[in-house]
């Protein structure tokens, strides 16, 4: 072996030695260095050997020291398990046999010595260092002992009992803490470990804290397994750690107790655990199959699951975050080769807080509480939520019985009311296998009354305008007030609601009177009720129809009368009473006529007949008609008549009639009427002036026509205007159909001005104004007006040419200035160029055209202008003057006259000049129509002597219609006629209303409905004669034809 090899070995050796040896090695290595240098010299070899000897010497010395130590007791250690006694032990000296005796002395204030064998139990020493001397034969060992060096190791705990609740997979552990051995109170930490399967996999280690109280105490501890306990054997062990605050030594865990186990003793049948478990949605669950066959497949629903193998063939699966089950639950199936096993898991929710809990009563006998279950629990059948309604004041409760078919609609429970209790404090508790919830409600039931629907509604008569209404409302409302609503329906009428407050009764029967009804009317009643204070209306009761009894007719029928055609008999008509007035079925009428001398009564006239005929002299009579129904007679309706002879009245004159009633205090004006026997056309035209003219408009103002000259009610004005000058031939009649004549019909008779717009500037216009009544058109008044010039146009017309001329001038000047040289050359050359001289060209162009031969061309003399003098053909002036008067006298209907029938009017009036109507027209209007005809006939031959008068129908139609009605009243009168038709031809002559109610100035204002206002006898029938040919279309429409007397009282509309 070479030196190097040796060194290597030593080096290897040194790495596992103590420090002492290491130091030796260092020395050795120092020595080895020179040996390398003088490798061949023997002297060096000798030196190396010495070093090895030294090493061995050192090793020997160390061993000697060590063996000296082993000859005395050493390594003193003390432990305690109860803090009262220390259990000390030490290593025996080498050579000391079993049973060797030691003397142990402890310096603990006093010197105490014990003679002991190897171990000794000494009482716990006070804190601080204590000298311990152990004598063993001749050798003495001294130790210093302190509490800090003592270890506290509690006794190993013992499990008293381990039991299992398989249904809940819970383990129950029981042990004793043996606290009596410990002097002081101290905290204990228990550590419990759970192991599973035969190979004891640790499932869980948990701690449990208790306190030692100086007594032996049995502790309980439970643990719920995530895996059913049937699936595998479960083992439990326990150890403890006592934390004594005053002990300063090492506190250590006790040893683990003996393990106890729980296993399920199965018969050999295959079983799946857990069965029918109800769990919360979203939780995890382990399902196992305890079997002796090999499980090939596990399914949750239709999902395959990985198997967790347990002991033997047992398997488990773990389901994470389970979703809500359908009603029959979630199936878990384990398939073995030729069979299937399974279980059902019901995953759902704990009950929601009952929502919208509401308690009310229908009858103050029973309280109905309703609520909504809230979120569905997904649990049905026996797992469904059960509800308990608890009332805290009375301590009573009711349970909700599970409905066969669960619904999410509201649930309800009935709670019997207790006498003398009004305020109820309800708690509704909802509970299912996963938990419970509740909601509370404090309610005063007298304020929460929702009455049932009123039933048995009955009606009885009191009189013709009042009935009693009775109904039944189940419940005992004696302590509260009811508020009921009665709906009263009358056919074709808006329904009426009446609120009634009444005191509640015990026997459920209610009765009230309903008044202010109409007699003999079908009513429909229905009722609903609530309570005070208001909570809810009941439903409406069924409708009850009832006919009120009859009463006497409230008034007599509207009556009027007429003389028979032979004038001997008076025919009395009356209008059947309306239902409201008849108050029943009218059976008959009594008619009587009384004059100063006698009273004549007719026999009873049965209902369908509404007319009677009496033979009477033409005196003043009072006729009365009474309607009778089964109850009695109406007040008589009386009409009085007086006849005024017709020959006292003239047409075209306004009459004021004043009718006075004779009363106790004297006479009283009942009514005044203004009217005409017959309306005629106005005799004068309205005076009108031009107020203002502008370039395109004219403002015209006119004055009223006096009443005497109006001869009827003014209906409006007609305003014509056309372009034309006084002296042109265009001045013709104002016939209709001429497009250049514009007509404005002013029906608002209060209007006194008119602005004509859109006219041309500086143009002459012919304006004509006339008034009309229902009697016809009045005469015309015409005027010529020239509109003003349009000044802006004129300015523009001047400015534009001037501006153009200036621009042309300026441009020309500039051009001329610029081209002045050229101009000068062209027009004013200084020296004529001989070459340009045409006179000298002829030699060159001999053979050119003959025209070139001309040296000078003379223009022919032509005249600049031809003036032709013409003479104008003018209409003879003599005709004009004649025609002026003709125009003034033209009839008002001249618009119908054909244009060619007229002579051209051509005269030159002043710019503004009034045409004064022919005074003859006044006379004609003021007199009779015969005169009017005469005027027309006189005019016609004058204008067109060769024409026959029949060619101008209007001109020939001198007779004016007397039955004209107002132009504006066509619709009204048509309606009136309709009404007349409805009333079967009766025309009331004495309308009581109009006698009393209508103001004298507006006789027609109340007549919008039906009857034509007229009274008096139809004696003016004689004057009705249609003497005129058919009216032209311009004439105001006639209506109310057959009665000429209506014209007599033609009334002013809008007066």
């Amino acid at each position: 072996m070479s030196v190097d090899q040796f060194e290597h070995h030593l080096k290897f050796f040194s790495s596992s030695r103590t420090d002492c040896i290491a130091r030796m090695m260092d020395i050795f290595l120092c020595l080895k260095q020179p040996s390398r240098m003088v490798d061949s010299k023997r002297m060096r070899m000798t030196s190396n050997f010495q070093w090895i000897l030294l090493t061995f010497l050192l090793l020997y010395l160390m061993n000697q020291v060590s063996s000296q130590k082993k000859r005395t007791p050493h390594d003193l250690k003390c432990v305690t398990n109860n803090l009262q006694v220390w259990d000390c032990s030490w290593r025996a000296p080498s050579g000391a046999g079993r049973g060797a005796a030691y003397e142990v002395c402890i310096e603990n204030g006093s010197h105490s010595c014990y003679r002991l064998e190897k171990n000794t139990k000494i009482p716990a020493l006070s804190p601080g260092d204590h000298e311990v001397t152990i004598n063993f034969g001749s050798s003495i060992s001294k130790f210093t002992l302190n509490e800090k060096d003592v270890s506290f190791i509690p006794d190993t705990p013992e499990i008293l009992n381990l039991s299992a609740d398989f249904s809940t997979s819970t383990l129950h552990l029981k042990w004793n803490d043996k606290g009596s051995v410990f002097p002081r109170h101290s905290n204990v930490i228990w550590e419990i470990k759970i192991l599973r399967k035969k190979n004891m996999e640790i499932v869980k280690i948990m701690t449990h804290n208790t306190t030692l109280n100086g007594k032996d105490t049995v502790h309980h501890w439970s643990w719920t397994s995530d895996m059913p306990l049937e699936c595998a054997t479960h083992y439990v062990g326990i150890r403890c750690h006592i934390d004594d605050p005053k002990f300063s030594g090492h506190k250590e865990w006790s040893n683990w107790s003996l393990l106890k186990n729980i296993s399920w003793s199965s018969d050999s049948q295959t079983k799946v655990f857990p069965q029918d478990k109800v769990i919360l949605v979203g939780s995890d669950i382990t399902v196992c199959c305890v079997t002796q066959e090999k499980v090939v497949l596990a399914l949750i629903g239709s999902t395959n699951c990985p198997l967790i193998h347990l002991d033997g063939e047992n398997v488990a699966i773990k389901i994470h975050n389970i979703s809500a089950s359908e009603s029959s639950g979630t199936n878990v199936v384990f398939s073995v080769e030729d069979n299937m096993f399974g279980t059902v898991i019901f995953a759902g929710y704990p009950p929601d807080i009952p929502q919208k809990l509401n308690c009310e009563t229908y009858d103050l006998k029973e309280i109905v509480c309703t609520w909504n279950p809230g979120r569905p629990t997904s649990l049905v059948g026996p797992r469904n939520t059960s509800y308990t309604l608890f009332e805290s004041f009375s301590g009573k409760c009711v349970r909700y019985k599970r409905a066969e078919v669960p619904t999410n609609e509201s649930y309800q429970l009935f709670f019997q009311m207790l006498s003398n209790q009004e305020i109820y404090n309800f708690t509704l508790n909802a509970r299912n296998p996963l938990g419970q919830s509740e909601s509370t409600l404090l309610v005063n039931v007298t304020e929460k009354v929702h009455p049932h629907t009123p039933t048995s509604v009955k009606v009885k008569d009191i009189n013709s305008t009042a009935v009693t209404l009775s109904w039944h409302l189940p419940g005992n409302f004696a302590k509260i007030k009811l508020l009921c609503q009665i709906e009263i329906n009358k056919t074709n009428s808006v329904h009426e609601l009446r609120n009634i407050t009444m005191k509640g009764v015990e026997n459920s029967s209610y009765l009230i009177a309903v008044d202010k009804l109409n007699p003999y009317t079908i009513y429909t009643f229905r009722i609903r009720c609530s309570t005070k204070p208001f909570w809810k209306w009941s439903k409406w009761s069924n409708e009850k129809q009832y006919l009120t009894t009859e009463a006497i007719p409230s008034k007599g029928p509207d009556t009027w009368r007429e003389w028979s055609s032979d004038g001997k008999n008076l025919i009395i008509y009356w209008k059947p009473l309306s239902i409201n007035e008849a108050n029943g079925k009218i059976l008959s009428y009594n008619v009587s006529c009384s004059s100063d001398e006698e009273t004549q009564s007719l026999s009873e006239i049965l209902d369908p007949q509404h007319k009677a005929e009496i033979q009477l002299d033409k005196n003043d009579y009072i006729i009365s008609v009474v309607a009778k129904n089964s109850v009695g007679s109406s007040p008589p309706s009386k009409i009085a008549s007086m006849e005024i002879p017709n020959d006292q009245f003239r047409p075209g004159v306004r009459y004021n009639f004043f009718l006075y009633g004779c009363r106790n205090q004297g006479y009283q004006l009942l009514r005044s009427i203004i009217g005409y026997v017959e309306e005629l056309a106005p005799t004068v035209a309205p005076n009108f002036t031009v107020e203002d003219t502008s370039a395109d408009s004219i403002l015209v103002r006119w004055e009223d026509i006096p009443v005497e000259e109006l001869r009827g009610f003014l209906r409006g004005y007609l305003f014509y205007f056309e372009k034309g000058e006084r002296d042109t031939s265009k001045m013709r009649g104002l016939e209709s159909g001429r497009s250049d004549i514009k007509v404005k019909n002013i029906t608002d008779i209060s209007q006194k001005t008119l602005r004509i717009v859109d006219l041309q500037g500086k143009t002459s216009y012919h304006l004509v104004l006339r008034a009309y009544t229902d009697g016809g058109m009045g005469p015309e008044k015409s005027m010529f007006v020239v509109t003003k010039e349009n000044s802006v146009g004129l300015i523009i017309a001047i400015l534009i040419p001037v501006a153009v001329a200036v621009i042309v001038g300026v441009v020309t000047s500039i051009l001329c200035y610029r081209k002045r040289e050229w101009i000068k050359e062209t027009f004013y050359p200084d020296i004529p160029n001989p070459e340009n001289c045409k006179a000298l060209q002829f030699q060159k162009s001999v053979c050119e055209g003959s025209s070139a031969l001309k040296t000078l061309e003379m223009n022919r003399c032509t005249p600049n202008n031809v003036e032709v003098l013409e003479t104008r053909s003018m209409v003879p002036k003599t005709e004009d003057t004649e025609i002026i008067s003709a125009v003034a006298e033209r009839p008002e209907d001249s618009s119908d006259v054909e244009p060619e029938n007229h002579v051209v009017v051509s005269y030159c009036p002043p710019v503004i000049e009034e045409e004064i109507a022919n005074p003859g027209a006044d006379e004609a209007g003021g007199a009779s129509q015969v005169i009017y005809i005469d005027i027309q006939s006189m005019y016609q031959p004058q204008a067109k002597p060769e024409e026959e008068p029949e060619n101008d129908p209007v001109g020939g139609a001198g007779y004016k219609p007397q039955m004209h009605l107002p132009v504006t009243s066509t619709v009204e009168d048509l309606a009136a006629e309709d009404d007349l038709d409805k009333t079967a031809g009766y025309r009331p002559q004495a309308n009581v209303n109009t006698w009393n109610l209508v103001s004298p100035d507006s006789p027609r204002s109340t007549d919008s409905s039906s009857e034509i206002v007229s009274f008096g006898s139809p004696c003016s029938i004689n004057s009705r004669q249609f003497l005129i040919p058919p009216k032209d279309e311009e004439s105001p429409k006639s209506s109310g034809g057959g009665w000429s007397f209506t014209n007599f009282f033609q009334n002013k509309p809008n007066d």
Partner: protein
Amino acid sequence: MSCQLAILCLLTLLLPPLSRGAPMSPAERITQAYNLALSMQENMSTLLQTYLQAQGSPFSDPGFSAPELQLSSLPPADISFKTWNALDDGERLSRVQGAFLALTQHLQLVGDDQRDLNPDNPILLAQLRDARLRAQGMLGNVAAIMTALGLPNPRAEDTLGLVPFGASAFERKCRGYIVIREYGHWTDRAVRDLALFKAKYPS
């Protein structure tokens, strides 16, 4: 629904066959029972489908079948042809009667089970009730045939005595499946048996 009502009306006619005024001939009774069996056969697949659908997966999975599941309290309908062929009239009818007696009681049990598991499925509950009524009808018809043929009528016995009432939900689901399946098998067998009787006792 109207179909079910019609069947119910038919059943009310069939249930008290003995109480009718004019006694029916054996052939008429056989025909009546045969027609009832045919109508039961028609409704069979609907009932099974409705039942399985209500039990959730895997029962409701298409093509679900678990022939391995058996119920000891129900007599099996399977029989070898040779044995079946060799049965005499009394034995043949009494086996059918025994089976339908057991089925009637089991269908009642299944109906109760489903009222807990599927209270919100009125269609299923109604079909189970109808099936039970039909089974009772068949029972009455077979008894009437036996009486008409002069065969001894064995006493009805309680076949359900051994049914465990504390069955788990899964067991109940399986039990219902077996009962309805066996109800179908026995209906098929009754049709064959009655067809045999029809041929044997022509009207």
